[in-house]
């Protein structure tokens, strides 16, 4: 029984991690909370659904097209709005509010075109559960966990060893200095958004295949990504991974002790705790007190 709960928790963790990785990438370079990230989670599955209805293509192709659509949309938001705001020296609050507006706009666009009812994609064999060591697994759920682990590892390796990784880290720690050294921070940001959007889109596709999709399904993963980032720290892939595991698993374990509907509440209380006492995250060093 408990293995099932933990397994379920890990699937949730995987979802949160995929969304959080992208969210943290954008926060580190763009330096603002990009709420529109949540809608990229929703776009990919709906585009996938649309393609499946319109064309005779295998599921994989439609899924990849959906993810590509999310990637494109994310970049569009940057090129169309965020970049302009950055040029104007807009504060992070203004950008947060703009991203909120984009979120509302696009969610309602989806709702208007596709309706609010839950849409399900029949994934055939991928949905058939196999009991393994007492845990009920489906291919989709395994894929989710695998995707999260692969993405996290790939991202970690990229950041540590590649040139892109170094560029990213330079922009993340000091954008002005990076710009002065000839690094184009705009490019770093759009790459971050592209990668992040693809990750969020992938998570959306996998969740949609698992349980179906609704236009408002992006809000909760978005907020969970925020919790994961605050708890894990925006600069550490390991921190994000540990935070995601902790939050996903403890949420599901908590359901054994209390009514299920409170599990989101727990995550938000955790968020408040971290915001108040350790906003830089679990693994980061305590930052220097703000001088006057």
């Amino acid at each position, binding site marked *: 029984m408990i293995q099932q709960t933990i397994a379920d928790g890990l699937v949730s963790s995987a979802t949160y991690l995929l969304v959080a990785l992208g969210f943290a990438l954008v926060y580190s370079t763009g330096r603002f909370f990009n709420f529109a990230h949540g809608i990229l989670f929703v776009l990919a599955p709906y585009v996938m659904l649309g393609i499946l209805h319109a064309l005779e293509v295998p599921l994989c192709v439609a899924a990849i097209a959906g993810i590509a659509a999310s990637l494109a949309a994310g970049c569009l938001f940057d090129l169309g709005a965020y970049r302009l705001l950055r040029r104007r020296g807009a504060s992070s609050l203004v950008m947060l509010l703009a991203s909120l507006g984009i979120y509302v706009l696009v969610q309602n666009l989806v709702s208007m075109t596709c309706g609010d009812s839950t849409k399900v994609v029949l994934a055939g064999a991928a949905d058939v559960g196999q009991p393994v060591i007492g845990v009920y697994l489906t291919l989709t759920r395994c894929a989710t966990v695998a995707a999260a682990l692969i993405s996290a590892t790939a991202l970690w390796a990229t950041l540590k060893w590649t040139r892109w990784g170094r560029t990213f880290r330079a922009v993340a720690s000091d954008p002005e200095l990076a710009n002065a050294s000839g690094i184009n921070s705009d490019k770093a940001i759009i790459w971050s958004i592209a990668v992040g959007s693809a990750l969020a889109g992938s998570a959306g596709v996998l969740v949609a295949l698992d349980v179906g999709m609704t236009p408002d399904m992006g809000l909760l993963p978005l907020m969970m990504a925020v919790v994961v980032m605050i708890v894990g720290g925006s600069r550490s892939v390991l921190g994000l991974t540990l935070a995601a595991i902790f939050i996903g698993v403890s949420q599901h374990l908590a359901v054994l002790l209390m009514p299920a509907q409170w599990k989101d509440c727990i995550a938000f209380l955790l968020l408040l705790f971290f915001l108040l006492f350790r906003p830089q995250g679990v693994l980061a060093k305590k930052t*220097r007190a703000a*001088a*006057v």
Partner: protein
Amino acid sequence: MSDTVLNVNNLSKSFDGIRALADFSCELRQGEVLGLIGPNGAGKTTLFNVVTGFIAPDEGGKVLIEGSDVTGLASYKLANRGIARTFQDLRLIRQLSVLDNVLLSFRDQPGERLWNAFFQWRKTRQREAANRREATRLLEEAGLAEKANDPAENLSYGQQKLLSLVCCLAAKAEVLLLDEPVAGIAPEMREKILAIIRDLPAQGKSVILIEHDLDAVMQTCDRVVFMDAGAKISEGTPEEVRSDPKVIEAYID
């Protein structure tokens, strides 16, 4: 024998292993203008921040105002204890008018308590009117009266520095801590501000002045303290400190 209005004893402060203040002690005597000089990063602004309550000192240090221990008090409480300060990076409320900035700087305003704003209209209005008159007078003396209703951001840099000094005067503080009051401004305004500062002791006030402009320090200060790496290196009259070999050595380094 003049009284000491401000004492700092054995102040230390470390940030992430960097010692910003290293067992620093000094005193400010009633009616004097004390200059605080030293290279960048010497800890001068940190000292101001500790004295005005924006940073708490490490264990063991003490700040005393007229003999009372005020170490670790919140900054707003210290501001109400007769201390006023300016900031190295010039803090003003740029969106509000010049007059509003001065009005904000008055202490003990009944209208700032919400209860009074609703239930003590007369007292609030009277005090506000009196403050307005006083603020206008101060601005006239400083030569900023015609800009009184302009947003503070419309002033030139030098005028803004003058405004922040006027705000300190509005506070009716006995101790003024001025952080680079004439840095980066034109000679005419510089002279004007220095003249105001020189006149402060006659009004019963005591001043600590951080400046890099050594001429200004020589002209304006009664005593000077030289700081480096968080410690007091030298202390005395401007001439004494200027010719102190330790000071010369520190500047060459």
